[in-house]
C-alpha cells in the first residue's frame, strides 16, 4: 500500500493544483502541504523498511518479471527521506523566494512533477520504468529551468535539455540492447540472469551505455559541462532544488546498477570509476576556484562532490559504499543550504557577484552563521557532516589501498576549503565596495519563511555530523543489502 505513495502523492497534488486555476494563495497552500505530506509518507516508508525489510509491490498484481515492480529497499527509503525533507524546505523557501509571476505559472505544479519523477526513479524496480521516471524528471526540470522565460534562462535551458536528452537516448539504447540479449528488464530478474551466465558478453555493451547515461545525469567528468552552463540561470530556489535532487538521482542509478550487475567488480570498471572520480573532483574544484559568482562557484562544487560519491562507489567495499551514501546525504543538505544562503545574499544586496558585495558580517551576523554552517560542512570542518563524510571515504580508500585517489581527494578537500573561504572573505569580511550602490528597491528585512529553511538546513548539517555514528550504522545496513543482491532478487521474485 505505502510503496506507491512517493508517486501517488505528487500526482494527487498535481491534479489538485490544476483544479485551482491561477489563484496564487491556493497554489502555494496546496503545493506546500503536498510537499509536507510527501515528507511524512517518506518517514513512514523509512520506518516500515527498517521494521520489515525490502518493500515490494507489483503494479496491477502481475508477478515480478512480467509486470512493473516497485521496490523500496533501505537505500531507496533513505534517498526518499532525504530528498523529500530537502524538497519540503526548498518549498517553504519558495513561498517568498519565487516571485508571484512564477507562482501564477504554477511553480509548484512542476515542483511536484519533479518530485514524482525523483520518487519514481528511486522506487522503480524495472529499467524501463526507471527510464520513464528519468524522463518525467528531465521534462519538469526543463520547464522549471525556463520558467519565467528570461533570455538567459532559455539559453541555459536549451543546453540543459540537449545534454540530458542525449543521456536519455544512450540509456534507452542500452535498454534496447539488454532486452534483445536477455528478454527481461526487471532489475532483479536481469541481475539473476547476468549472474548465472557469462557476464561480460551480456552486460558490458549495455552497461557502458547505462554508465554514460547516468554519467550525464550525474555530471561526472567528461559529461559535466551542461551543469555549470545552466544551473546559474534560473532563480536560486530552483537551482537549490536541482542541486539537491537531479545529479544525485544519477548517482543513485549508478550505485544501484553497479551493485546489482557488476557484482565482482573487475579492474576495468574499478579503474574507470576511480580515474573518472579523480578527474571529476579535480576539474570541478579548480574551475570553482576561478569563479567569482556565488552560484557558479557552488555549481562547480556540485561536480567536484559528485566525484567523491563516485570514488566511494569505486572503492566498492561495504564501508566505502556506506561512506559514499553518507557523503551524498550530507551533500544534499549542505549544498541546498549553501545555495539558499546565496539566494538570501542576493535578496539583500541584489547581486551574486563577489566583487560587488561585502561587509555582510557586520550588518547581518546571523546570515554569516547560516552560511558558515553549510559552507564549512562542504569544506569538511569537524564536527559538521562533511568532515565525517570525507573521513569515512578516506578511511575506506586507505583500507582498500587506493592511495593515489585518496590523496587526490584530500587535496581537493583543501581547495574546496579555499573556495568556501573565498566566498566568506569576499561576501562577509571584506568592507562593502564604495563605488557600488546597493539597490534601494530591495527589502531591508528578509522574510521569515526564507530564513527558517536556511537555518534548518544549516543546523541539520550540524546535527547530521553530530549523529554521524548512528547514521553510519543505518547506512552500513543499507550497504550490506546492496552488497548482497540476492536479498533484493529474492524479495522481488518471490511468489506473491
Amino acid at each position: 500500500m505505502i510503496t506507491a505513495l512517493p508517486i501517488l502523492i505528487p500526482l494527487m497534488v498535481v491534479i489538485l493544483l490544476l483544479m485551482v486555476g491561477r489563484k496564487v494563495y491556493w497554489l502555494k497552500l496546496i503545493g506546500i502541504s503536498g510537499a509536507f505530506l510527501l515528507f511524512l509518507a517518506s518517514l513512514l516508508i523509512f520506518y516500515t523498511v527498517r521494521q520489515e525489510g525490502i518493500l515490494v509491490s507489483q503494479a496491477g498484481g502481475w508477478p515480478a518479471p512480467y509486470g512493473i515492480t516497485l521496490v523500496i529497499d533501505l537505500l531507496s527509503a533513505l534517498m526518499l527521506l532525504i530528498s523529500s525533507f530537502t524538497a519540503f524546505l526548498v518549498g517553504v523557501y519558495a513561498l517568498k523566494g519565487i516571485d508571484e509571476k512564477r507562482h501564477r505559472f504554477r511553480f509548484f505544479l512542476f515542483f511536484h512533477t519533479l518530485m514524482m519523477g525523483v520518487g519514481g526513479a528511486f522506487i522503480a524496480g524495472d529499467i524501463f520504468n526507471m527510464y520513464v521516471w528519468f524522463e518525467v524528471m528531465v521534462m519538469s526540470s526543463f520547464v522549471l529551468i525556463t520558467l519565467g522565460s528570461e533570455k538567459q534562462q532559455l539559453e541555459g535551458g536549451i543546453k540543459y535539455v540537449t545534454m540530458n536528452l542525449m543521456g536519455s537516448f544512450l540509456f534507452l539504447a542500452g535498454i534496447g540492447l539488454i532486452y534483445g540479449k536477455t528478454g527481461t528488464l526487471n532489475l532483479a530478474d536481469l541481475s539473476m540472469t547476468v549472474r548465472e551466465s557469462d557476464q561480460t558478453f551480456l552486460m558490458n555493451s549495455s552497461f557502458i551505455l547505462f554508465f554514460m547515461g547516468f554519467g550525464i545525469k550525474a555530471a561526472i567528468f567528461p559529461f559535466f559541462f551542461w551543469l555549470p552552463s545552466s544551473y546559474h540561470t534560473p532563480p536560486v530556489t530552483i537551482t537549490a532544488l536541482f542541486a539537491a535532487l537531479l545529479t544525485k538521482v544519477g548517482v543513485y542509478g549508478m550505485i544501484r546498477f553497479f551493485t546489482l550487475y557488476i557484482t565482482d567488480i573487475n579492474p576495468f570498471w574499478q579503474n574507470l570509476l576511480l580515474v573518472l572520480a579523480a578527474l571529476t573532483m579535480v576539474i570541478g574544484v579548480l574551475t570553482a576556484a576561478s569563479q567569482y559568482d556565488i552560484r557558479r562557484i557552488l555549481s562547480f562544487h556540485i561536480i567536484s562532490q559528485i566525484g567523491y560519491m563516485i570514488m566511494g562507489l569505486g572503492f566498492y567495499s561495504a564501508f566505502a559504499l556506506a561512506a559514499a551514501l553518507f557523503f551524498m546525504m550530507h551533500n544534499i543538505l549542505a549544498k541546498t543550504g549553501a545555495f539558499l544562503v546565496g539566494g538570501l545574499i542576493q535578496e539583500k544586496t541584489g547581486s551574486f557577484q563577489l566583487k560587488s558585495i561585502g561587509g555582510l558580517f557586520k550588518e547581518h551576523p546571523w546570515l554569516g552563521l547560516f552560511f558558515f554552517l553549510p559552507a564549512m560542512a562542504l569544506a569538511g570542518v569537524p564536527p559538521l557532516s562533511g568532515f565525517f563524510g570525507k573521513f569515512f571515504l578516506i578511511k575506506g580508500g586507505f583500507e582498500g589501498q587506493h592511495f593515489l585517489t585518496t590523496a587526490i581527494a584530500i587535496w581537493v578537500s583543501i581547495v574546496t576549503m579555499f573556495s568556501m573561504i573565498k566566498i566568506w572573505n569576499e561576501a562577509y569580511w571584506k568592507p562593502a565596495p564604495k563605488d557600488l550602490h546597493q539597490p534601494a528597491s530591495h527589502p531591508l528585512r528578509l522574510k521569515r519563511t526564507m530564513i527558517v529553511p536556511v537555518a534548518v538546513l544549516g543546523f541539520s548539517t550540524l546535527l547530521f555530523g553530530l549523529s554521524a555514528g548512528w547514521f553510519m550504522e543505518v547506512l552500513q545496513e543499507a550497504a550490506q543489502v546492496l552488497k548482497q543482491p540476492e536479498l533484493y532478487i529474492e524479495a522481488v521474485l518471490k511468489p506473491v
Partner: protein
Amino acid sequence: MNSTILKMAVGVLKPLFLLVSLWLLLRGHNEPGGGFIGGLIAGSALILRPLAYDLERLSEKNKRQSRIVLRAGMILIFSSALLGLVSHNTLLKGLWLKVNLMGTQTLKVGTPLLFDMGIYLTVIGFIYFVFISMMEEWQWK
C-alpha cells in the same frame, strides 16, 4: 490558412476521425489502439475546423474547455489507479464488472478501460490546449 479543399473536407473528416478514435479506444485493450492513439486522432479532429475556418474565434473560453477535459482525464487515470489500491491493496489492479446484455452476451467493463479513457481525455485536452496556445502566438505576429 485558406484552403478550400480543407474547408470542404472538414465536414466529412471530423465525424470520421471521432468515430475512428472511439473505435481505437475501445479495441485498445487487446489489440493495437488504446487511449493515446485514440486521443491523438480525436484531438486532431477537434483542431480541424479552427484550422480551416476561424482561427480568430479561438478564445480564452476554448482554452478553459481544454483544461477541463485535461483535468477530467487525469482524475479518471488517478481513480482507476486508486480503485485497485483501495480494494485489492495493489496499485492499478484491474477490476472487472460483468454486465449482462439481453441474457446472451456479457460485456466486461473494467478499470483498464477507465484508465484508457483517462488517457484519451488527457491527450485530447493537451492537444487542444497546445494548439490554442500556439495559434495565439501566431496571431500576435
